[in-house]
């Protein structure tokens, strides 16, 4: 059954794929050429490998690369393992319910703000040591321990785990809705398997494909993270991403070439890491088969249950305490070691911060709302197309015997192509930002399109769209189509059915994905800086600027304002359906 407008939905994936592949390719070329010594503006026109030689002979570069790989891969591995174990032991229990409630505010905390708070929590002069000093430790001055910025990047790794774990759980929560968990558990229990064993042997392997791309995104992010690495990572030498950013900003313009090579090297590390994960998948597939079918019913996991739950709680706790620290700093006047709380307090910085952040907040809100709106429009368009495509697929399979013809095959091929949209959408999350944003900046300046609000918003859209897609796709695609079919039988208008039946029913997930898109836009720093040509200051650029100074009190004020914006959006996503559907209990879920 196809109605007017329904077959046109292919426009969405085609548009999105075009937009994404062209911009990223252009940005990529803008980085590739300088890395081979081609940057005419500073007089380099002879293609050669000299830049790469310089790059690999830069002092400490091997350590930089190794630290990057170590912290990025360890963090990703821990996040994935911990997430799977956590899901296995606590699905649908009280802790899980708590997570469902707390996850969005936790996710909305920007990485940099979290890193500032977390750094102050664990530093030798930080809150944890202050809690027990000087009474228990006798420390009147902080101990000289390497807890932050450690050369191996362990503090950075821990912070990454804390920040990425909730993200993976959120994606998993969406994807779990698509699996028949209750039935599987029922059958498994009937066969005598322990609950944890059913999860590990049956459900996690089925969940994994849904999470694969998000896991790749986590790997790419952990390897190329900049803001957290500056605050928490090692610095002699720093991790590769930080080094690349430093080179890009070096007054000696010849470092631009080195920066390009560095960012390509980073991209290469991401690619190889993802490929290794792919290999691990294959190997696991081969070796875990016998384990899955060995028939053992009991699980060692039950023993670790309290420990895993504890880890989950710790992660949330650390995030919340990091925010609490920011609140205290924002109200402090003087706060020295070993005082557990400030000795003098002041509202001065809130008064100053509220006034001077007004304009940046407005820019942030307008840009965030606009890009989330467009993102939502495109996401729903793409998902609608995918839904229709899946439906056609099943229809075709039913009567494919007599219909197979050349046309059909061709159609199938384009459809398959369009189906790969997921991979295109994830491109901006898989390629390190710094690798292609600098190239895009050059391109925009050439086209005289830099410094316009519309291009700024577009650059945000590149990162907003994938996250909105991740957030919405599972729920949207598992929508019970019988409802819409019924509605269409009653009223043959695709648009009307969407507007008055399907979307209202999906209001809550739609609003949530909107809030996620908004919070992603709020957090963008590199695109705002490079594409905005300094014409637009958002709350995030303000935070990063003030963080380059020393005053933690005003920094805390800005970071909290930054944190509040997504929080308000998430609160709206929860409250609006409650108000609209106050008299329809079924719609509030």
């Amino acid at each position, binding site marked *: 059954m196809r109605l007017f407008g329904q077959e046109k939905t292919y426009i969405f994936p085609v548009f999105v794929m075009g937009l994404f592949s062209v911009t990223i390719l252009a940005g990529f070329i803008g980085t590739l050429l300088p890395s081979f010594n081609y*940057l005419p503006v500073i007089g380099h026109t002879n293609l050669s490998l000299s830049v790469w030689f310089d790059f690999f002979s830069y002092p400490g570069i091997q350590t930089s690369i190794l630290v990057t790989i170590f912290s990025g891969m360890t963090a990703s591995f821990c996040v994935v393992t911990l997430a799977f174990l956590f899901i296995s032991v606590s699905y649908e229990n009280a802790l899980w319910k708590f997570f469902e409630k707390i996850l969005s505010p936790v996710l909305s905390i920007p990485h940099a703000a979290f890193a500032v708070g977390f750094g102050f929590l664990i530093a030798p*002069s930080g809150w944890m040591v202050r809690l027990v000093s000087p009474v228990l430790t006798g420390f009147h001055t902080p101990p000289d321990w390497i807890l932050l910025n450690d050369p191996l990047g362990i503090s950075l790794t821990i912070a990454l785990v804390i920040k990425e774990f909730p993200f993976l759980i959120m994606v998993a929560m969406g994807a779990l809705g698509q699996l028949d968990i209750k039935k599987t558990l029922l059958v498994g229990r009937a066969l005598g398997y322990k609950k944890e064993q059913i999860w590990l042997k049956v459900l996690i392997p089925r969940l994994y494909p849904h999470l694969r791309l998000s896991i790749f995104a986590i790997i790419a992010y952990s390897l190329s993270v900049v803001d957290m690495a500056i605050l928490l990572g090692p*610095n002699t030498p720093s991790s590769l991403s930080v080094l690349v950013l430093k080179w890009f900003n070096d007054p000696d313009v010849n470092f631009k070439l080195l920066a390009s090579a560095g960012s390509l090297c980073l991209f290469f590390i991401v690619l190889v890491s993802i490929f290794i994960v792919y290999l691990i998948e294959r190997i696991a597939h081969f070796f875990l088969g016998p384990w899955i079918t060995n028939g053992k019913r009991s699980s060692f996991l039950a023993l670790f249950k309290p420990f895993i739950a504890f880890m989950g709680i710790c992660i949330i706790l650390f995030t919340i305490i990091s925010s609490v620290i920011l609140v205290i700093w924002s109200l402090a006047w003087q706060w020295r070691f070993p005082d557990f709380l400030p000795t003098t307090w002041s509202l001065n910085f809130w008064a100053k911060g509220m006034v*001077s952040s007004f304009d940046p907040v407005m820019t942030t809100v307008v840009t965030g709302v606009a890009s989330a709106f467009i993102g939502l429009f495109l996401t729903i368009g793409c998902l609608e197309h995918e839904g229709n495509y899946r439906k056609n697929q099943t229809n075709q399979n039913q009567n494919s015997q007599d219909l197979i013809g050349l046309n059909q095959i061709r159609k199938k091929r384009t459809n398959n192509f369009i189906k790969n949209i997921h991979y295109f959408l994830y491109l901006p999350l898989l390629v390190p930002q710094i690798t292609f944003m600098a190239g895009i900046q050059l391109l925009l300046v050439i086209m005289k399109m830099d410094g316009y609000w519309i291009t700024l918003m577009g650059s945000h859209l590149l990162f907003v769209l994938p996250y909105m897609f991740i957030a919405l796709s599972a729920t949207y695609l598992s929508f019970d189509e019988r409802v819409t079919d019924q509605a269409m039988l009653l009223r043959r208008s695709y648009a009307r059915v969407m507007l008055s039946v399907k979307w209202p029913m999906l209001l809550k997930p739609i609003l949530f994905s909107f809030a996620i898109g908004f919070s992603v836009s709020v957090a963008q720093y590199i695109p705002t800086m490079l594409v905005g040509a300094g014409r637009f200051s958002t709350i995030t650029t303000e935070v990063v600027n003030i963080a380059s100074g020393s005053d933690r009190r005003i920094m805390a004020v800005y970071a909290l304002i930054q944190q509040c914006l997504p929080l308000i959006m998430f609160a709206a996503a929860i409250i609006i359906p409650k108000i609209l559907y106050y008299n329809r209990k079924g719609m509030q879920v």
Partner: protein
Amino acid sequence: MRQFFLIFLSLLFLGFLSQAHAVDWEEIEKKAKGQTVYFNAWGGSQPINEYIQWAGRLVQKKYGVRVIHVKATDIGDVVSRILVEKAAKKLQNGSVDLMWINGENFKAMKENTLLFGPFSQNLPHFQKVDNQKKTLKYDFTVPVDNLESPWGMAQLVFSYDTSQVLKHPETMSDLLAFAKKHPGKFTYPAIPSFHGTTFIKQALSELIHDPKILSQKVSAPDFEKHTQPLWDFLDALHPLLWRKGKVFPTSGSQMLSLLNDNEIFISLSFNPNSVSNAIENGELPNTIRTYIHKGGTIGNAHFVAIPFNSSAKPGAMVFANFLLSPLAQARKANPKIWGDPSVLDIKKLSGPDKKLFDDVPKGIATLSADELGPGLPEPHVSWVQALEKEWLKKYNK
């Protein structure tokens, strides 16, 4: 005879030019009216941001020029952007109209001909600038050539916590002795950060046997021979540093937080008033004081410059001129506001202008001009690059 004639002619021409100045400036002010100036400047300090806001408000009121402070974490970003604009042949309507700059960034801009000018000689308030100061003519030994207009002076000062340290060091070897007595209580920012590099330069100027050689271009054998005392000093110092020299702060700003957290007892800064300012706004306790080493410390200056493709050059000049005015300079020098030393020659001022400066309170932790002394000259810029490279090779592992 002919030569005399030529000189006469050029003198006549010069006289003409200075005549033309006065007229020109009115013209510039007229053109500036209604323009918007995007002033790109580091935005990491609330007091400085507020000062720039104040200056912008006044220029708007007096000259009808709108100033927007584009905050940067690192002015290198801005140099990059102007370079990209040049690469893309954007020769007008660039995104930057005026920028806060000095040192390596200025050198990069000058070498790549990204600067507009010479212009600073045309600014009326430039007449009152202290032209005795060598640091205003040579920005990190690179000739300024009127391509940037002076804004403030800087000099390396150390700060220490009087509640922890009774007697502050007076030389680099004193500092080493301090570190032996209080291991882990001193550090300096990692190279190539501005403050870190300055500390290394200061150490070299104190330790080198023949300081005169620093004003010349460096040669490889010279470098090896003359910097050996520096590396010996650092090799001895590093195991005694904060975190045993395995971790360094990334910026001068971070040093201030470390001092407040009691992590270190001795810190350094480039603004002789910054400690007074930080005490004033509660960022540091009242027990911190500043000092300098016996032979003096390295001093330099910071400037504002106009990029070649600025879309509002007259507006930028009007703002640069305002920043040089006694009113703006005196306010800037006030430790309660910012505490950045003035570039004006107080002797050239009289009447209400002089009073502005007389009224500037002395900061609680600020050294007097006599105590600060004339400041050591910067080493030739080639030394800096060689030093940074060698430091990275030795300690960035």
